[in-house]
């Protein structure tokens, strides 16, 4: 059996000492889980090693940790997978051509550590969950029997219902790192669970609340970390984007954070230019260059612009004169989508799995299955949303017509393909 080195982050608040690394050699099969290895250490060598765990089948949500820098459940992460797929801090890449056997195990991020691998979920995660009024507010009158609601609708909210509250998405939420008050991926996914539930009476109120909150739905920067982290395919970011779409398009909620206007400015910008013209985006988000609200925003973004110029991220010519014009194809796509009577929510959780996918069986090992390849729209919005994040104000990137759903496709893929972390790797570099 292969041997792995577990480097476990230890912390005992009663010892009066800083956290430290504790190393153990563990011999276990490569399909054994990281939790198996941790429990082996605890059972056989050191009973003081603290970790919450129970079901060992990825349903109770207790054992969220970071393994080689990546958050997830220790119980459904295979040792070999953990050794290979690290990223971020705590990841020790092997020498060229060497096989990595070192697995660091740390407590999750964005939450205070109580002891060893045990974090204070209540102080952060559950407090945020409670923030979103996490219970059904019944539509009146409550029927004598069940509410009659469409089948697909129930499957759709079951996606967010499938959240096990493990905290993996909270652990690596970049927005929360910058703004600890951000409601965050898990709680916003929980919010969608009610917003998307046709039995709930307060869809508008919930969305209004989360749009107006400056730490609400427009505080997400589209980094995909939560989608990558989620062990249950809940796709928190996709749910946040759906909240935005429903708030903006169905309810026209013009929030004071300017999320709504920014979104529309972005769409307009792309429609016109094909490629994002950043110099227009900010003023347009505030009603145009001459609008009284836009002036202070423009002034306040000057340092960012100057820094970007100094670092040659942009040139004055590029910044001011955007020569790119949208090709006909872009306009056609816009016309097609905007011409639809109803917005199409492509949710792969509901629709994504067709019988007998075309590609060869067993090609990628047991678990591989790909949804039908159809939409390839995410490219324009996703990369263009990213560069904003490190420099500009909180991202208010566009959502029409649906990078969110695309996210679930990515998630399916990266979850199954053990070597592919592609969607988020660039952010973490």
């Amino acid at each position, binding site marked *: 059996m292969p041997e792995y080195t577990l480097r476990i982050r230890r912390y005992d608040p009663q010892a009066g000492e800083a956290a430290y690394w504790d190393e153990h050699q563990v011999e276990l099969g490569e399909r054994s889980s990281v939790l198996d290895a941790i429990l082996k250490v605890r059972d056989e060598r*050191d009973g*003081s090693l603290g970790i919450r765990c129970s079901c060992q089948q990825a349903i109770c949500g207790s054992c969220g940790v970071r393994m080689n820098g990546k958050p997830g459940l220790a119980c459904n992460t295979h040792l070999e997978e953990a050794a290979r797929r690290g990223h971020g801090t705590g990841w020790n890449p092997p020498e060229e051509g060497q096989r990595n056997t070192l697995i660091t195990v740390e407590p999750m991020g964005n939450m205070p550590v109580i002891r060893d691998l045990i974090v204070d979920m209540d102080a952060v995660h559950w407090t945020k969950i409670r923030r979103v009024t996490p219970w059904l507010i019944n539509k009146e009158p409550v029927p004598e029997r069940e509410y*009659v609601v469409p089948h697909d609708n129930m499957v759709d909210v079951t996606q967010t219902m499938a959240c096990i509250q493990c905290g993996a998405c909270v652990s690596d939420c970049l927005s929360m790192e910058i703004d600890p008050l951000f409601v965050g991926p898990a709680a916003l996914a929980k919010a969608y669970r009610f917003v998307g539930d046709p039995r709930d009476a307060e869809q508008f109120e919930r969305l209004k609340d989360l749009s107006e909150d400056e730490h609400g739905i427009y505080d997400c920067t589209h980094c995909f970390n939560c989608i990558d982290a989620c062990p249950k395919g809940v796709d928190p970011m996709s749910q946040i984007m759906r909240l935005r779409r429903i708030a903006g398009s169905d309810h026209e909620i013009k929030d004071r954070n300017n999320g709504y206007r920014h979104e529309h400015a972005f769409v307009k910008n792309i429609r016109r230019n094909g490629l994002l013209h950043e110099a227009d985006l900010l003023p347009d988000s505030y009603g145009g260059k001459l609008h009284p609200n836009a002036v202070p925003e423009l002034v306040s973004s000057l340092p960012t612009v100057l820094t970007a110029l100094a670092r040659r991220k942009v040139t004055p010519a590029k910044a001011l004169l955007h020569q790119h014009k949208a090709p006909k194809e872009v306009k056609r796509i816009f016309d097609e989508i905007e011409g639809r009577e109803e917005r199409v929510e492509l949710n792969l959780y509901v629709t994504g799995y067709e019988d007998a996918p075309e590609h060869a069986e067993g090609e990628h090992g*047991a678990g591989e299955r790909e949804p039908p390849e159809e939409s390839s729209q995410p490219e324009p919005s996703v990369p263009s949303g990213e560069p904003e994040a490190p420099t500009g104000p909180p991202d208010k990137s566009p959502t029409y017509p649906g990078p969110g759903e695309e996210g679930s496709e990515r998630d399916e893929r990266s979850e199954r393909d053990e070597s592919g972390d592609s969607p988020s790797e660039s952010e973490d570099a």
Partner: protein
Amino acid sequence: MPSHDVLIIGAGLAGQRAALAAAECGATVAIISKVHPVRSHSVAAAGGINAALNPEDTWESHAFDTVKGSDYLGDQDAIEIMCREAPGEILWLEHAGVTFHRNESGHLGTRAFGGASAARTYYVADITGHAILHVLYEQLMKQGQLVDRYEEWFTTDLLQDDHGRCIGAICRNLRDGQLEVFNAKTVILASGGAGQVYKPTTNGLIVTGDGIAQAFRIGARLMDMEMVQYHPTTLAGNGLLITEGARGEGAWLLNAEGDRFMEQYAPNKLELASRDVVSRAEQTEINEGRGFEDGTVALDITKVPRRRTLEALREIVNIGRDFAGVDITREPIHIRPGQHYIMGGVKTDTNGLTTIPGLYAAGEVACVSVHGGNRLGANSLLDTLIFGRRSGEHAAKQAAQIPMPTTPSSRVDETQANIDAIVGREPGGRRIAAIKDELGEAMNEYCAVFRDADGLAKAHEIVRRLKEEAPKAAIDDRGSVFNQDVIGAIELGYMLDVAEAIVVASLERKESRGAQFRTDFPERNDDEWLKHVDISANGADVPKVSYSPVTITRWEPEERTY
């Protein structure tokens, strides 16, 4: 010192349902759990929840199926209550927000389940327990003003007054190790089963029989403890559960020769016979050499349309992929019977009241007995909710009539001394995990699908020896913040008490009924054994055995075939 009308220990489905019901009756309520409520093992219940809600179905049919499933050991008055109240409970859950599966017309849809004469299992994909548990927790958050939650508090002792009435508990805050007396007019145990007594088991690491042992230690009677359910479809090795929903959706069981062997054992219901019957059939195939080399048979889920599997059995697709490396939509998966549930528990009446005044029990910790010799799939969620609610309501009404008892806070000193003794143990004892593994393996060998007197006697010997070793087991953690080592030591003691009760009861029942199959007494014997085996504590000695009658209302015992 916290004082409440109703103190609930355990926050799975039964505990949370009890808390909501008691609060609705106007009682002050505290709910205590050693883990965060949504980590409770109810979360792992997969397949669904039974109710005769469909107009073509009747509660009598549901009740008869349950009686028959119990091999006529279930108490029919309790079964009638459960089945009659089931439809209302489903609707209550639906209104509270559970995202139950809908059929094409948008109404609640059902799936077939084992031992049932109609498709009456309501479900949320294969995460039904999870979906209901999280919705109850939503309701608990909503009732935050009415219900005090003590999350990650471990109960060490139940308290009694001079008349033997239960008047609260002592609990340890895992965050800092502090002990606290909780005064209560009534106490409801809802702390779940005892799967960790077995290895392997489908149950989580937290399922250590705490409540069963705590009640037993203060003199409560246990009942039907010999009735331990082996689920027909668990993964070899790690024992993870593959939901009965798979067979409900149409999966087949095949032996290594490719035969659909259930045709011989249950020609009518086939894979959907009751669990004891299917598990025994599988074990017979394996024992007689028609299983695979790894001691398994195959579950062929490819019979279910792939799209349906991916929608309705999502979780076991993941389990197959992550824990067995098998794509269940494309190939059969190897399974075998594995410990899953204990029908027995703390004996209660239909209001959840145990034989100790002031002490209630509901859910897997309790034995009403609605499951008798064998529980039907999707009846356990129902049991937790119906009897959780009834306990909560009854306890709240009782509490309204009595004054608040008090226990001197110095009572914690005694408990503190016990904990200090554990923390201060001399090094050099066996490891807790080693003792626990030996226990689990012995139970799984001698007290499983097939049993006999010799094996059970061996198991008893092992349990008695481990009971001597356990108090000296090695402790590494001397701290007080999340000291899981100390909790593990206490839980080990609980597990050994429960194990002994199981073994003693199994030895006592000299017949084969439901989950208890004695190869030395292979027939059911209604003349002598149509009665419950009760177990009660007897100091440090082997527990005492007594009997109580089975309540029969309208279904006389008949031969049981599927």
